[in-house]
C-alpha cells in the first residue's frame, strides 16, 4: 500500500475508534459499576446532542455548549438514578426492562415536544488535505478527545479518592459499605457520570449529524458491542476492545462496504460472548495472572 493509503487507513481506524470509545464510555461505566445495561443510553446521547445544539443557537460557543450538554445529561442521570434505577440493583434483568421503559418515554416525549428535527450546528474547523484525499479536521479532534476521555477516566479512577471508593464498590460493594464508603452516593455519581459521558458523545457528534430524537440509535449498537467486548472494567477492557473492533470494522468497510462493516460488529459480539464471556477484561486479567 502506498503511504497515502496507509495514512488514510489509519485515519479511518482512528475515526472508528473515537466513535466506539465515545459511544461506549458512558455505558461501560454504568455496566462496570452496577451491572446494569442502560437501555436509555441512546436517548442520553440524543439529549446531549439537543442540549448542545440549543445552547449553541442560544449563543454559547461550541465547546461550552458541549459541556453544558454533558452536565445537563449528568444531572438528569443522577435524578433518574435516585428515583428509579436504584431500585433495580438486585434485579439486573428488570433493570433492562425499566431503562427500556425510560427510553420509550424519552424518545416519544422528545418527539412530541421537539418535533423530529432541528436545525443543525455545522461542523467546525474545515478540512486538511493529504495526497489527494482530504480529511475533516474536526474528526481528528474527536480522536484526540476520545483519548483524552480515556486518560481522564484513568486519572479519575486511579488517582482520586472518589476513584478509589468507586473501584472498591465495583469489587465488593458490601465490604466497601462496611468500611464506610458511601456506596449509594457512589452509585448516583457513577450513573450521572455515565449519563454525562453519553451526553458528551451526543454533543461531540451533533455537529456532524442530523439532529433527531432517534439519533442515539445509530450509536447504540456500536456502544453495546464495545461494552460487551470490553468487559466489566472500563480501564482495562474498553480501550483494547475499541481498538480491535475499530480495526475489524474499518477493514470490513474499506474492502467490502458499509453493510459488512455493520454486520461484522454484530457477528463479533456473538463470538466474543461465546469465546470471551468476560470480554477483554477477563482475558487480560487471566493472562496477567
Amino acid at each position, binding site marked *: 500500500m502506498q503511504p497515502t493509503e496507509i495514512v488514510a487507513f489509519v485515519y479511518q481506524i482512528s475515526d472508528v475508534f473515537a466513535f466506539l470509545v465515545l459511544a461506549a464510555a458512558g455505558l461501560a461505566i454504568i455496566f462496570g459499576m452496577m*451491572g446494569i*445495561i442502560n437501555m436509555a443510553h441512546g436517548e442520553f446521547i440524543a439529549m446531549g446532542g439537543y442540549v448542545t445544539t440549543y445552547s449553541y443557537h442560544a449563543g454559547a460557543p461550541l465547546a461550552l455548549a458541549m459541556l453544558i450538554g454533558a452536565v445537563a445529561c449528568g444531572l438528569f442521570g443522577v435524578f433518574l438514578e435516585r428515583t*428509579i434505577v436504584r*431500585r433495580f440493583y438486585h*434485579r*439486573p*434483568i*428488570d433493570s*433492562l*426492562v*425499566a431503562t*427500556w*421503559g*425510560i*427510553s*420509550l*418515554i424519552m*424518545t*416519544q*416525549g422528545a*418527539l*412530541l415536544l421537539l418535533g423530529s428535527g432541528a436545525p443543525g450546528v455545522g461542523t467546525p474547523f474545515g478540512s486538511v488535505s493529504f495526497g489527494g484525499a482530504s480529511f475533516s479536521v474536526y474528526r481528528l479532534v474527536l480522536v484526540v478527545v476520545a483519548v483524552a476521555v480515556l486518560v481522564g477516566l484513568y486519572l479519575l479512577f486511579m488517582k482520586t479518592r472518589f476513584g478509589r471508593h468507586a473501584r472498591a464498590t465495583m469489587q465488593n460493594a458490601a465490604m466497601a459499605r462496611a468500611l464506610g464508603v458511601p456506596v449509594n452516593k457512589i452509585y448516583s455519581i457513577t450513573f450521572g457520570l455515565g449519563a454525562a459521558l453519553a451526553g458528551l458523545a451526543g454533543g461531540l457528534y451533533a455537529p456532524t449529524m442530523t439532529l433527531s430524537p432517534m439519533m442515539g*440509535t445509530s450509536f447504540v*449498537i456500536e456502544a*453495546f*458491542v464495545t461494552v*460487551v467486548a470490553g468487559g466489566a472494567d472500563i480501564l482495562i477492557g474498553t480501550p483494547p476492545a475499541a481498538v480491535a473492533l475499530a480495526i475489524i470494522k474499518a477493514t470490513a468497510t474499506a474492502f467490502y462496504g458499509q*453493510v459488512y462493516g*455493520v*454486520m461484522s460488529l*454484530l*457477528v463479533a*459480539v*456473538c463470538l466474543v*460472548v*461465546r469465546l470471551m*464471556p468476560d470480554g477483554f477484561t477477563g482475558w487480560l486479567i487471566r493472562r496477567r495472572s
Partner: protein
Amino acid sequence: MRAFLSLLNGPQTFGSSRGFWATAIAVFLVALLFPLVGDGYTVGNLAYFGVWVFMALGLSLIWGYGGMLSFGQTAFFGLAGYSYGVIAINLGANYGYPVLALFCALVIAAVLALVLGYFMIYGRITGVFVGIVTLSVTLTFATFLNQTAGPEWRIGRARLNGYNGMTRIPSLSIPWFDGDKITFRGPALYYLVLVLLVLCYLGLRIMVNSRFGNVLVAIRENPERAELLGYDIRRYQLVAFVVGSTLAGLSGVLYTAWGQFIVPAAMALPAAAMPIIWVAVGGRKDLTATLIGTLFVLWLFQTLIVISQQYALIVIGALLLVTILVMPGGYIVWVVENRDAIFNWRRHRAERLAESRAVASDGASE
C-alpha cells in the same frame, strides 16, 4: 392419559379450582359463538390480537418460567414468517401447501432456536448477556434482511425484497371437498387462532406442571442449587428456549398468513420490545396471567392510538416503567397471589384489630 390431563392443574399455574375451569369453559364458549353475533371488523381484530399471544406465551415460558430474558422472540417471529413466505410462494396456494409451509416454517424456527440456544446456553451465557446476545442476533437478521432488496436475493420464486418486505404471500388454506378450499381469513382465521390458542395454552400448562416444569422453575430460582441437586440445567433451559422460540415462530407464521406480508422491521428494535411489555404487565410467572395481560395491552395500545395518537407510546412506556417498579411480577399475578388479602381485607383488618386489643388487654391486666 388421566395422569397427563391431571397436570393441567399444578403448582406452577394459577387457577386450579372448579370455579376457574368453569369460567374458562364459559369464556371459551363465548369466544366460539362470538362470530355469530359480532361484526366482521371485531372478529378480524380479535383474530389479529390472538396471533400475537403465542409469542407472549413463549416468552412467558422462557423468561417467566425459565428465568432467561430473551430478546430473540421477534427474530424467530420474523424468520418463521419469512420461511413460510418463501415456501408458500414457491409451492403455491393449493393442495394445502400453505399448511405444509406452516409446519416447515415451525421446524426451521425450532432448528434455529436449537442452534442459537446451544451456542448460548452450553456456552454458559447467563443473565443480561442472554438479552444482549439475542438482541444482537435479532438486529443482525434485521440488518441483513434489510439489504436483500436486489433481484439476486431470492429463494426459488420468492424474492426477499429487503426493506420493503416480501409480499403476495398466500394465506393459509386447506383443501376441502369438491375441489374447493377454505382460506383462513376473517371468521375462519378466528377459529383457527382460537383452536391453536387453546391447544397451546393447555399444552403449556401440562408442560410447566410436569416434572420438567418444576425443574425449570427451580433453575429460575437458583441455577447453582439446581445443578448441585444433579440436574443438567443446560438441557432444561435449552428445551424451554426452543419451545418458547417456536411459539414465537407460530405467531410469525400466522401474522404473515394474515397480512400476506412480512418485513424486516418486524424484527427491529421497537418491535423486539413489545413482547416484553405484554408479558411484564400481566405477569410473566404464569401462563394465564400472560394470556390475559397480552390481550389487554394489545387492546389498550390500539385504543390509545385511536384516541390520542402520539401519546400512546409514552403511555405504554410509562406503563412498563410503573409496572416493573411497583409490580415487577405483573398486575394479574399480584392480584391472584394476594387475592386472599384483597378480598378479605375487611376480615383481616378486624382480625388484626381484635388481636391488638387482645394484646393490649393482656398487657393492661399485667
